[in-house]
């Protein structure tokens, strides 16, 4: 990008299970927004624009940003609510800064609700075709997991290994909802939910809150010595009623990644990216995404997994946060991953050494409401710098 934009501060609380936070979304959002401001000595009056990520269906009320926006500092400010993902919110923040309209933008989101997610994600489907057959997010995950299993002739145990890798990472992440080191055997022993996916291979819904401050180059230099620069963003969406090939081949991720890479001037992703945070609410999506993003040939991501390349200490760590299996927050999950990547680039996470990591890729998606058709994807490139 010609003009530079940075993430200058983050606020985050430890994620918990549904309804375990003891906070409504305004209280949780206030806590993390204030934290983000305090970290760099900024005040509400310094904010030019506030972006909130919520989805009414996941908050149980309409206009669900009504409570949140003032909690993030939006009273008497420009603000917008985006009903998709964290990367989409950051896109809006970056656009407002690059237009010259803003110098400092708050992006915040929270999840504080307990709900029957199977029912809610069925309610999210269309009423004529998919809704009446009870289709929901978890079933869409099962279909993609089946497709990958059959196409690449891999073992169900490989899915358990991906889950195990994520649980090991989540166990040392102080912000992750699930901190338990489930073994491959324990995962294999958990019951099928949507064959071939087992209970411990699908993320449980998490509650928590997260915020970050996005700044123009001038403002970033004024506020911090530790900015993480946004070098590229790509957004795309997929077909809703399409062929199975269109619904399963993740062309939308490829396109989002290409846009973000081109903007960041990245020539060779494999050589240049040091770590990744991928939205993977079910274990094998990590493999599907790595291949779609171009980090290996189709069907070969499992080799990277089994070689330990994507684990803590590997050549390309993926989801050091513990990923969607350890923290699966519908509204704030995207921002959670962005903040995790920022903390990793700044080597701020206890339990993992990310000292020499310079460039991160964050993939974000609204696939938590259904992964086959009508899915939005976002890819964000981040660079450590001065």
């Amino acid at each position, binding site marked *: 990008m010609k003009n530079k934009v940075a993430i200058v501060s983050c606020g985050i609380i430890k994620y918990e299970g549904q*309804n*375990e936070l*003891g*906070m409504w979304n305004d209280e949780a959002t206030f806590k993390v927004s204030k934290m983000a401001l305090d970290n760099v000595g900024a005040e509400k009056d310094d904010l030019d624009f506030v972006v909130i990520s919520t989805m009414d269906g996941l908050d*149980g009320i309409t206009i669900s940003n009504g409570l949140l926006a003032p909690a993030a500092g939006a009273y008497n400010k420009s603000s917008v609510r985006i009903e998709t993902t964290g990367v989409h919110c950051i896109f809006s923040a970056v656009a407002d800064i690059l237009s010259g309209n803003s110098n400092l933008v708050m992006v915040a989101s929270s999840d504080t609700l307990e709900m*029957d997610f*199977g*029912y809610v994600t*069925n309610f999210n489907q269309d*009423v*004529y*075709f*998919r809704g*009446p*057959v*009870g*289709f*929901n997010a*978890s*079933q869409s*995950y*099962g*279909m*993609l*997991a*089946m*497709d990958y299993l*059959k196409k690449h002739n891999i073992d169900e145990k490989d899915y358990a290994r991906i889950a195990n890798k994520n649980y090991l990472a989540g166990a040392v992440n102080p912000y992750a909802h699930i901190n338990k080191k489930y073994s491959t055997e324990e995962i294999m022993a958990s*019951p*099928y*939910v*949507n*064959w*071939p*996916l087992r209970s411990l291979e699908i993320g449980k819904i998490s509650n928590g809150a997260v915020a970050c401050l996005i700044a123009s180059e001038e403002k970033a230099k004024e506020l911090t010595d530790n900015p993480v620069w946004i070098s590229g963003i790509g957004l795309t969406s997929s*077909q809703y*009623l*399409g*062929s*199975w090939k*269109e*619904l*399963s081949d993740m062309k939308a991720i490829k396109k989002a990644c290409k846009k973000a890479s081109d903007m960041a001037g990245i020539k060779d992703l494999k050589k240049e990216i040091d770590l990744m945070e991928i939205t993977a609410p079910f274990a094998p999506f990590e493999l599907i995404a790595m291949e779609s993003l171009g980090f290996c040939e189709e069907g070969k991501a499992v080799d990277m997994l089994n070689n330990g390349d994507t684990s803590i200490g590997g050549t390309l760590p993926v989801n050091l946060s513990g990923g969607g299996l350890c923290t699966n927050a519908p509204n704030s999950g995207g921002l959670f991953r962005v903040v995790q990547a920022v903390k990793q680039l700044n080597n701020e996470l206890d339990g993992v050494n990310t000292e020499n990591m310079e460039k991160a890729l964050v993939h974000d998606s609204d696939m938590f409401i259904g992964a*086959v058709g009508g899915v939005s994807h976002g890819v964000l490139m981040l660079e450590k710098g001065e």
Partner: protein
Amino acid sequence: MSNNVIKKEWRFNFDFSVASGETYGRFFKGLNDKKIIGNICNNRTFYPPKPFCDKTLKPPDAWLECDGAGIVEAFTICCEKSNGVKFSKTDKKPDVPYVLGVIKIKDSEHCIIHFISGFETKDVSEIADKIEIGMKVKPVWATKREGEILDIEYFEPVI
């Protein structure tokens, strides 16, 4: 959690209604008569029909009709009952395990998601072994049909 925190429970119970539009309306009315209606858009075949070609944004060219036979492109075996979701024909939840499949009707260039049944076993691994990608299936019609997707009770393998 502080002693001052209380918990509030609530439930949505609103009534909504939405028109199908001409294109989907023809498809659902066809189901009432055990017909599968499709159309041609930009030389591509679609069952169910599409109201427009998303590649060219042009209107469809012609209507089609077939018996609904197709192939399985993907599936999952649902092992947990969907809480809250009830099915209009029976007002019940299906017994688990049951199969939801991605079905391509005839030479359609998009697919539908529907139940696949007729496996004579409730063992998940046995059901998984019995379903091949590309397996031929045909619709089994509900006795009482009202112009909706569940006028097809389920798809069953063509032996």
